[in-house]
């Protein structure tokens, strides 16, 4: 995925999510269970990121966690979360240039994490409206 310069306008890419929702025809509740699974995964990943920022400041690990969550969020069409996760991945790999110190990178990741949690909440609420449920 080539780097998108700006965060996508819409929280959810419905082209992608609709495809998954269409699977519910054979398997009722499939898309919803998948989303619930993702929310759990995301919450635990956010916590892991938080832990690394607070303790060992391991950029490598942080980058991998960003990459991990990027994959699942993107495959569900949660494109803004995916975008933020890619930022975290890039910061973890120190791809923003050599002038930036590790501490700066940690700070950048912290900022991204805050943004990711915000995006996570807005995705939850939009999906809650769609499924008419409370995630």
């Amino acid at each position: 995925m080539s780097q998108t310069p700006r965060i996508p306008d819409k929280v959810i890419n419905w082209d992608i999510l609709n495809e998954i929702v269409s699977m519910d025809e054979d398997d009722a509740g499939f898309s919803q269970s998948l989303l619930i699974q993702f929310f759990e995964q995301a919450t635990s990943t956010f916590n892991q990121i938080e832990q690394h920022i607070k303790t060992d400041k391991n950029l490598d690990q942080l980058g991998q966690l960003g990459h991990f969550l990027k994959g699942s969020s993107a495959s569900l069409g949660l494109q803004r979360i995916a975008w933020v996760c890619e930022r975290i991945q890039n910061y973890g790999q120190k791809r923003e240039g050599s002038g930036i110190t590790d501490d700066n990178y940690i700070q950048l990741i912290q900022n991204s994490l805050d943004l990711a949690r915000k995006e996570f909440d807005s995705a939850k609420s939009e999906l809650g409206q769609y499924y008419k449920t409370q995630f």
Partner: protein
Amino acid sequence: MDDLGEQLSEGHKDDYDNGIGSVPGGSGSNGKGKSQRTSFNDFVRKLFLILESEEYTSIISWSPDGKNFIVLDTNKFTTDILPKHFKHSNFASFVRQLNKYDFHKVKRKKNEVSEGIQNAWEFNHQYFRRHDEAGLDNIRRKPSSQKKILVDENSVIVRKLGGAPGDDGAFIAGDEEGMTAKMLLKNTVNKTKFNQLKRKVEDMENQVQYLTNENHNMKLDLQKIQSKYNMALESLLSTESFNSQLISNFQILVDALSQQGLKVPVGLSFEKGNSRADNKSHQQRQISDSTGSTPNANIPGLSVNTTLQKQEPIELLPMDQHPVLRPGFHVLLVEDDSVCIQLCSKFLRKYGCSVEVVTDGLSAISTLEKQRFDLVLMDIVMPNLDGATATSIVRSFDNETPIIAMTGNIDDQDLVTYLQHGMNDILAKPFTKDDLHSMLIRYLKDRIPLSEQRQNSNNDPKAYVEEPMLKKPHI
């Protein structure tokens, strides 16, 4: 005395100076006159005269009892006497000459030797006595010196022939002559031995002949191999030029597409950097062409194709002429993210595939070692072992099963790495159902699931279908 001779050995250059050649002068018996006598032991007589004259008593003299003679000062003997009276250049050579006349070095125990002559050399010969000139007639060179005569078949015959006229003419067979003849006979080879040797030589000649032939054959083989190598090299070079042609054509195509408003992914590059990967896919193309499969499935730079299809699925799909995917393909899904696993396996089942899931590279390897799959979908970033490395290991024992990378990292450098590790293609994450479908079509179209093949091959071996497009040479 023999050991002395060895100790001082320096060659046989001293043979010339004893007044008689290695061939006996045809005399040696007593009473033949002085001139004849001196001709065979001149050396001994000279030595006798020097001793009798007592000219150099500080250097060389008789022993007190007159039975031996002593060289008291070997240095002076070498510098003063040898050059003047003998042709020997050094003392060792002189001693060797004595040795040949059967003189012996007298070994004295240390306490027997009087002060000042520890380094003296004392020699003895039973006929070499003080004032006994007549005794000298009994001193002659040892017959062992006759070894000098070349002993081979021809010389034996010559000597025998030469000996025959000597019986009634000029040749008088003396003691020495008789001994020589015996010596020669001793050194002749008997017939059995000769035949054995002859056979050996013949065997060796045969062997040489055989080896020569073999060598010749090997040279021919080498030439053949060399010409084959040259041909291979040529075809490689032409492949390369054809390949670069393809790349430039492809570049033109991409340019044309982007001019018509199609979004072509950034960073597409088919310059020298990934020529290796291109080469691979090119070879793949050639091979699959020759086996008659549709080239459609083997376009180089597969990732680009993927992306294009994703953007224009409606335009491109009809070209596949309503491809039909047989049900029953067995797919191995290697993925560590549970959401992706569920999604992907859902899609796969929808297309009639059975799915087995493992969650890291190591398990993928061990699973593929035990069981064959029609296709492998492999994530790249995974715990334990990444997908690219796992693929390169799988390729060491399985070169046929298509392995598709699923990844969000699609930098062109990454793509090249995946292809170099032996992955066949790349499915960019996130992918749609259609992306996955076209990938399945590309690799599984026209193929019969392995499970079905096994059933068929039990009944009718001919039904086994080779997998043309998978015979990708792994570099």
